């Protein structure tokens, strides 16, 4: 991919990973990019690096602009290996005057690369350094999404280099939001928020408020993954909406099944939800990756879980999904459960317990069916779906 000038004398020099499909368990069917940026000024600054196996791409792109040894500062906005993996080799070649990072950044870089001798320069939150005609203000963004995370803001160019925030796993030859399909872009941005940031939503709200109060002028946001936002208003508004976990007129029936009994129940529950005028999606865990499902959870108001009992417990795919969803801490959801069983029948109780722990509003004790549902039991499932639909409408009307 070509080097791209994103602002005067500021260049994208990152790498495009067309092939990655599993990003530590997050499905990346559209690949991703590792964005790094080079600012040419009296002090030349490299913002972040790339995943280890792309270091040659990064060096090649830097060399089309300057000799890498002419880089003075390397800014590490985020220590995670997809942005820092090339750092040891790049530091050897560049021999930077400063490696600029947050306080936690320094700690985490040492814990990763075990190099106490690097020329760390720890910046305080809000600190500004001059690079010549431009300057960089550092905004600490702890836990968005690691303790070391920070943003770099270049006021002269109204450019916010935002680390992982506002990113998307989306491999493209285009670099800007006005060059790609907007629906595809917003889906990837939502999926990223859902799988990486949902649990830090209170911090996202605080950060957005802080940015507003600081009154900083931003006309471009350049994240470390995916497309660069020339229209930052759109993604800032989306982050505000997503961080409030308000949900919409939408319910999910997420289930696994052994011999289709729970699947029959899932279909009946979905019919009931639809009958109440609420949009519904049936998500069989055998066919939908957990990270795709989390993208749907983001704006759903109700989560209905279905699972048969296996060996006195849940099917492992459902147990794994619950572990994943619980960690991401979605809030403000209506919940209900159902499932078939043969002799012991613990699954519904376990599903309810998991939803209680997530503080979902469980509207029903749930429905258990022995072996195969009869017509009457399926009618009960339809009724359960209707109660879910009514609860969605009530919850939306009240908020």
């Amino acid at each position, binding site marked *: 991919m070509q080097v791209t000038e994103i602002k005067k004398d500021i260049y994208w020099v990152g790498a495009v990973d067309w092939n990655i499909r599993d990003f530590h368990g997050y499905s990346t069917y559209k690949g991703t990019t590792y964005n790094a940026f080079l600012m040419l000024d009296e002090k030349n600054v490299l913002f972040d690096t790339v995943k280890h196996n792309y270091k040659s791409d990064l060096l090649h792109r830097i060399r089309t602009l300057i000799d890498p040894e002419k880089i003075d500062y390397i800014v590490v906005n985020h220590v995670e290996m997809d942005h820092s993996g090339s750092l040891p080799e790049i530091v050897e070649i560049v021999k930077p005057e400063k490696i600029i990072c947050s306080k*936690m950044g320094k700690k985490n870089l040492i814990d990763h690369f075990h190099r106490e001798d690097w020329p760390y320069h720890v910046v305080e939150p809000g600190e500004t350094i001059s690079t010549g005609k431009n300057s960089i203000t550092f905004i*600490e963004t*702890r*836990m968005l999404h690691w*303790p070391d995370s920070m943003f770099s803001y270049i006021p002269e160019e109204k450019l916010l280099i935002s680390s992982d925030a506002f990113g998307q796993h989306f491999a493209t030859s285009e670099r800007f939001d006005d060059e790609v399909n907007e629906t595809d872009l917003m889906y990837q941005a939502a999926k990223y928020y859902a799988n990486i940031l949902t649990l*830090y939503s*209170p*911090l996202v709200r605080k950060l957005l408020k802080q940015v507003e109060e600081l009154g900083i002028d931003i006309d471009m946001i350049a994240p470390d993954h995916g497309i660069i936002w020339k229209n930052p208003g759109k993604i800032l508004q989306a982050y505000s909406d997503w961080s409030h976990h308000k949900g919409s007129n939408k319910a999910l029936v997420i289930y696994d099944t052994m011999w289709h009994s729970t699947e029959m129940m899932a279909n009946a529950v979905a019919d009931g939800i639809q009958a109440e005028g609420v949009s519904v999606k049936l998500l069989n865990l055998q066919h939908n990756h957990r990270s795709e499902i989390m993208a749907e959870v983001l704006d759903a108001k109700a989560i209905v879980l279905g699972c048969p009992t296996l060996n006195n417990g849940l099917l492992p795919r459902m147990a794994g999904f619950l572990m994943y969803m619980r960690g991401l801490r979605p809030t403000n959801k209506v919940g209900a459960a159902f499932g078939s069983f043969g002799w012991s029948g613990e699954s519904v109780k376990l599903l309810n317990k998991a939803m209680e722990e997530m503080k979902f509003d469980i509207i029903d004790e749930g429905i258990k069916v022995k072996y195969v549902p009869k017509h009457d039991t399926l009618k009960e499932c339809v009724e359960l779906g209707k109660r879910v639909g009514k609860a969605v409408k009530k919850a939306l009307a009240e908020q």
Partner: protein
Amino acid sequence: MDKYRCSICGYIYDPEAGDSSSGIPAGTSFDDLPDDWKCPICGADKDQFEKE
């Protein structure tokens, strides 16, 4: 009562507010938090907190 800051994520435990997400009532001092209480933001243990 003293406030405590999480050294990992910067969350501040304010005894006057408690921590409703873990069912900790307002007025609970940091010392009186259960040993298995965790930072509501990042999940760090109690011993990762420093006095403000």
